[in-house]
């Protein structure tokens, strides 16, 4: 039986009243289910006459439709046009001149297949795909709002994406890991580093904006979860579930109870600072444990004993309530991460600390504790207690520790800062047990848990770079008591004194333990989801979090049967698996459609994030279904899907009909080219434009993965939370996907070219046409710098012969040779013996030529 959430228990009277009202009101409108709720239907691809396209079902569907509408397809695009198109669409980069030459020499179908295979195997592929997915999860590395606090480990999720696309992680698994990767038995370790990867998938859901010092934490929680619902439902399901926050969905068969079923599911999870250790670190931890045992033997102290089951001997007064007790077996269910917390719930613990002079200090902690520094402080761990409802003013926490921080996390609020909430975050700086006191007057009725992390920077909003963190922290938690009184309850134990032990054997054992600790690999820290305490959420009447209606158990969407979610804990994993199942009517279709959109600039369903009633009807419904089923049959392989599309004749069409009559017909019947009789002329995304400049200039640094390159700050970036230092103008030549994304300092170049603000899912970027784009290409120092490098590289390779140089630059920038008109114009500008500045200016003009930013 699940407990009702705090939000429900807060005002049970209101709940009652609201449910009476709800019963009295009109019955909710049940909308008819649209096409998207029925599973994809298997349809035989239609027969077509043209033998060239009879092989590929995609082409058969498209051609049959064209024929039915009286449209003829455009001729195939020139080989170079196809090569440039497929290079940008799959990898976000232009083709290299030698690739262009090779393909021009042999544009056979086999050569095409080889090109597509090469691109799909290229490291650039995963980077390009990751950046597209980042739009769907409103990827950012900071929280925005007033001071733009950083989000711990956000970039690791970006790397997770790149890696997942690289290795073609089956899409069903890709979905499950993002919703519930923390709950999988098989965490899928990185083959190189040994780090468990699956939990990092959940980070994407947590990249929401966070408010600085919210006055109403419940409101902040409900906005936070709303955003996560919005993102998850749009990204994976193409549904606008968040529309059902205040009322039943106005157009889709989604009652508001569906929204609160999912709300409860997500409210039952928590964001935690997770410690991810490589599998092979086991050896180092075991060695440390042995060295610690030897040291304890030398010091004559027993190894710590398990705490068993009991209670800490507090003399409780009226108004005291124990909310966490290390002596009780319930503490075994607390969330614990990191080897430091293995076998760490012990009684009468004694830490052995190196005093630095060959002697050891023995730090006893009487009673039961969860202790992160028993073997050596350099082992790292995080701990989060069970949740409790705050029903009295003071929280007293009995703990010891150094270099560790304690956060009282109220309603999931972790970006803890003054004013208002500063006391929710406390530092531990005592070898002996002490009482910490937290004033919770303003958080009455809210749910909370206590989080410990024995790093100097356990706070998810800490500005320090993780390289600067000191792992030599430790904490020991005994118990926590909510109380009406400002003073902690008396404790029956006499405090034990620290003492010093010395001697040669001690010194040797200390040195041995120090060596073992020095060999510990530093784990990876990242904010991920973890299971909290399951709560069912009550409907927020008209979206108001203080007006509660009926309590909704966790279950699937009504239109999909509304089955209860069984299994572990909240049922989040079961929910993820239902979404990622072959039977789900939306998941495969939505992804197939995104991939199609990537290749054609328009999805078969144009509203990629909304398959509901207000979305667009599919232009080729049978093809969409056929592709979805093929996707499943191919083991949810995104690469197989892309390969099939890239090698279709439909993808290879030219953007113009050569026959004027056919062109006129197409313009009349299908001006928007929904029916795919020709290729669309598309503008490249800002990232591809920037990356292409780096490629042609030769400046590109193809280093993969790792912390982001700090954002380059311009005089205009005057918003709050401005980093102290600007990043480099050229981003160290790294691909755009590796540039830092700070909510308050979004890159103006990308913004001008329609990169979305990281607020919610954007599966289809708008394609605007603003002067800022032209001004950036004309006058931005980055463009000018790269143009100069471009010119220098080409003239260094080819000398200063004008026709040769122009030809080489056209190949590099546009994947084609200049026409006579273009060559004449170029020669007119360059003259016979242009100097370096003239060449650089010419290269700069080429960046501004529309071919550079458009894809034919």
């Amino acid at each position, binding site marked *: 039986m699940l407990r009702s959430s705090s939000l429900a228990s807060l005002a049970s009277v209101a709940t009652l009243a609201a449910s009476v009202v709800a019963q009295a009101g009109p019955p909710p409108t049940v909308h008819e289910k649209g096409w998207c709720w029925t599973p994809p239907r298997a349809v035989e691809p239609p027969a077509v006459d043209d033998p060239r396209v009879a092989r590929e079902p995609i082409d058969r569907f498209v051609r049959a439709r064209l024929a039915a509408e009286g449209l003829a397809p455009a001729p195939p695009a020139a080989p170079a046009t196809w090569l440039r198109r497929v290079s940008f669409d799959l990898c976000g980069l232009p083709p290299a001149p030698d690739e262009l030459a090779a393909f021009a020499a042999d544009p056979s179908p086999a050569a095409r297949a080889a090109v597509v295979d090469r691109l799909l195997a290229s490291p650039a592929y995963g980077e390009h795909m990751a950046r597209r997915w980042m739009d769907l999860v409103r990827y950012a590395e900071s929280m925005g709002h007033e001071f733009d606090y950083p989000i711990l480990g956000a970039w690791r999720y970006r790397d997770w994406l790149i890696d997942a696309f690289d290795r073609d992680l089956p899409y069903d698994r890709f979905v499950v890991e993002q919703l519930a990767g923390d709950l999988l038995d098989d965490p899928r370790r990185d083959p190189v580093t040994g780090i468990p990867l699956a939990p990092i998938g959940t980070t994407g859901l947590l990249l929401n904006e966070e408010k600085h010092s919210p006055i109403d934490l419940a409101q902040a929680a409900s906005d936070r979860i709303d955003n996560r619902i919005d993102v998850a439902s749009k990204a994976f399901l193409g549904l*606008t579930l968040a529309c059902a926050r205040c009322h039943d969905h106005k157009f889709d068969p989604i009652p508001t109870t569906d929204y609160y079923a999912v709300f409860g599911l997500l409210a039952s999870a928590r964001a935690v600072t997770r410690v991810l250790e490589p599998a092979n670190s086991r050896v180092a931890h075991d060695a440390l444990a042995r060295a610690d045992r030897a040291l304890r033997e030398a010091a004559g102290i027993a190894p710590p004993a398990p705490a068993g089951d009991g209670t800490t001997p507090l003399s409780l007064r009226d108004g005291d309530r124990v909310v966490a007790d290390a002596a009780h077996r319930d503490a075994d269910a607390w969330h614990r991460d990191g080897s430091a917390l293995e076998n760490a719930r012990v009684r009468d613990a004694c830490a052995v600390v190196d005093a630095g002079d060959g002697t050891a200090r023995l730090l006893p902690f009487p009673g039961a504790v969860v202790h992160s520094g028993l073997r050596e402080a350099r082992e790292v761990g995080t701990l989060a207690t069970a949740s409790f409802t705050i029903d009295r003013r003071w929280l007293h926490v009995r703990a010891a520790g150094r270099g560790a921080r304690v956060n009282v996390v109220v309603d999931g609020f972790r970006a803890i800062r003054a004013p208002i909430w500063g006391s929710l975050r406390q530092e531990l700086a005592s070898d002996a047990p002490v009482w910490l006191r937290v004033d919770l007057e303003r958080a009455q009725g809210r749910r909370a848990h206590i989080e410990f992390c024995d790093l100097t920077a356990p706070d998810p909003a800490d500005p320090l770079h993780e390289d600067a963190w000191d792992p030599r922290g430790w904490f020991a938690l005994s118990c926590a008591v909510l109380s009406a009184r400002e003073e902690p309850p008396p404790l029956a134990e006499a405090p034990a004194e620290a003492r010093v032990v010395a001697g040669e054997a001690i010194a040797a054992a200390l040195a041995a333990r120090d060596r073992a600790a020095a060999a510990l690999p530093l784990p990876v820290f990242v904010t991920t989801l973890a299971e909290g305490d399951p709560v069912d959420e009550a409907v927020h009447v008209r979206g108001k979090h203080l007006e509660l209606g009926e309590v909704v158990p966790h279950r699937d969407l009504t239109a999909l049967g509304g089955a209860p979610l069984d299994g572990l804990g909240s049922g989040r994993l079961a929910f993820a698996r239902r979404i990622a199942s072959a039977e789900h009517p939306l998941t495969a279709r939505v992804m197939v459609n995104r991939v199609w959109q990537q290749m054609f600039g328009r999805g078969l369903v144009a509203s990629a994030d909304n398959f509901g009633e207000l979305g667009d009807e599919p232009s080729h419904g049978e093809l969409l279904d056929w592709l979805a089923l093929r996707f499943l049959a191919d083991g949810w392989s995104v690469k197989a899907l892309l390969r099939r599309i890239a090698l279709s004749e439909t993808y290879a069409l030219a953007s113009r009909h050569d026959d004027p009559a056919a062109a006129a017909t197409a313009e009349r019947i299908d*001006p928007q080219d929904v029916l795919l009789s020709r290729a669309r*002329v598309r503008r490249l995304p800002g990232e591809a434009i920037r990356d292409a400049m780096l490629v042609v200039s030769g400046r590109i640094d193809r280093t993969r993965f790792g912390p982001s390159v700090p954002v380059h700050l311009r005089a205009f970036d005057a918003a709050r939370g401005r980093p102290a230092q600007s990043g480099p103008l050229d981003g160290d030549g790294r691909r755009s996907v590796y540039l830092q994304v700070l909510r308050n300092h979004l890159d103006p170049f990308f913004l001008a070219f329609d990169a979305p603000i990281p607020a919610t899912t954007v599966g*289809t970027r*708008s394609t605007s*046409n603003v002067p800022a784009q032209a001004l950036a290409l004309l006058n931005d120092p980055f463009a000018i710098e790269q143009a100069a490098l471009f010119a220098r590289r080409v003239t260094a390779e080819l000398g200063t012969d004008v026709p040769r140089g122009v030809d080489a630059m056209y190949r590099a920038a546009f994947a084609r040779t200049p026409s006579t008109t273009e060559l004449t114009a170029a020669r007119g500008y360059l003259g016979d013996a242009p100097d370096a500045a003239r060449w650089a200016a010419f290269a700069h003009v080429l960046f501004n030529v529309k071919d550079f930013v458009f894809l034919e």
Partner: protein
Amino acid sequence: MDPHDFDRRELLARACHGFGGLAALPLLGRTTGRGEPHHAPRARAVIFLYMDGGPSQMDTFDPKPRLQRDDGKPFPLKKAPTQFNDDGNLLASPWTFRPGGECGTPVSDLFPGVRAQMDKIAVVRSMTADFSEHTNANYFLHTGHGLQGRPSMGAWVDYGLGCASRDLPAFVVLNGGLIPPGGLDCFHSGFLPATHQASVLRGGDEPVPNVRPREARAGEQKEKLDLLRRLDAAVSERLGRPDAIESAIQNHELAARMQLAVPELTSLSGESAATRRLYGLDDEYEPTRSYGRQCLLARRLVERGVRFIELTCPSVGTDRWDQHSDLKVHHERNARAVDRPIAALLVDLASRGLLDETLVVWAGEFGRTPFAQGRDGRDHDPFGFSIWLAGGGIRGGEVFGATDEFGYRAVSGEVDVHDLHATMLHLLGIDHKKLTFRFGGRDVRLTDVYGELIRPILAT
């Protein structure tokens, strides 16, 4: 939304508004903005004087005799949590109120210049906002929604009406030095096409990013642009002159014109000495000179057909209107920076016949508490605060709504930011319920599902 339905009729409709409108079209975006008003507009431009940080209503436009009497006494009404949780007793206003203009609307000594213009101004004393935190309240004031990612009101206006200027964007923010909490997203286009985002102009030799050509030699850029035209023409010809390429080419032309238009705009050398003096460009207080320049630029932008102009506050060296402590000193500094220039703007617009067609709005994101924060500050108060409007379609000399005896909460004529937005759009000829954009499965409005006109302040 579906950015793919490129509506040709729309293109033609917008092309009528001149070259700027044409070039500013999204390449593939479906624009359901209208390009023409729903009804006869009373104003063709808005100047939004944004008072960053939240000026205090009891100290500016909402006199409270009871507060003056009960100075130092405990606040007797029910109180919502404040951001700093450091609530003291009632704090009387340190400033005297006096009647202004023939209408006699009382204004404190913080605003002697504006006070003389009260016959042009309608004060709303019962404005409310949904948020006590700056960032949320700023997003709310600017976008009608408390979180990041929604289009700013200026973007909606541009989307609804298009630009009447050939060389300048429709939505301009004059950045006086302070960017409000929430950052430039307060001025962004959100889910509307990026076309509609604000162009932020600031002081200095490059008021718009990258608007200054970098070429060392005079005439060099012209040679490059000539070459670009020829090469672009070849590209477009080769591809069959597709709309996307053609409008991108025209966009480059607009950018090139902006390189000339922006310096022409920001150069004030053509303004008379009297005008410069009127705006306080000779003032001994630097923030007054800075804000005076912004106000003068605002008028010049109105003259050039720009639709929506927002002014951010100048830096007065300490804090914006966010006086959590030391109210007296810092409210005086902030008021001193803006009072003379704002009065000048109203006078100047009126004398040029522009005030009738320009809506001027003065507002912060919330007000401040009548009880002290600490000893001598005031905390945030979104429950009832004062804003004012003047110009096109506004009934000058009016006072609408009231707060309680202390100025804490609106008690009559309560209105909120959605109502303000609805009223602003109305005066521009837009029905706020009809200006929609399909996003996330909904036809979204600036006013969400809210918004009633503040009719008592409208001129008949």
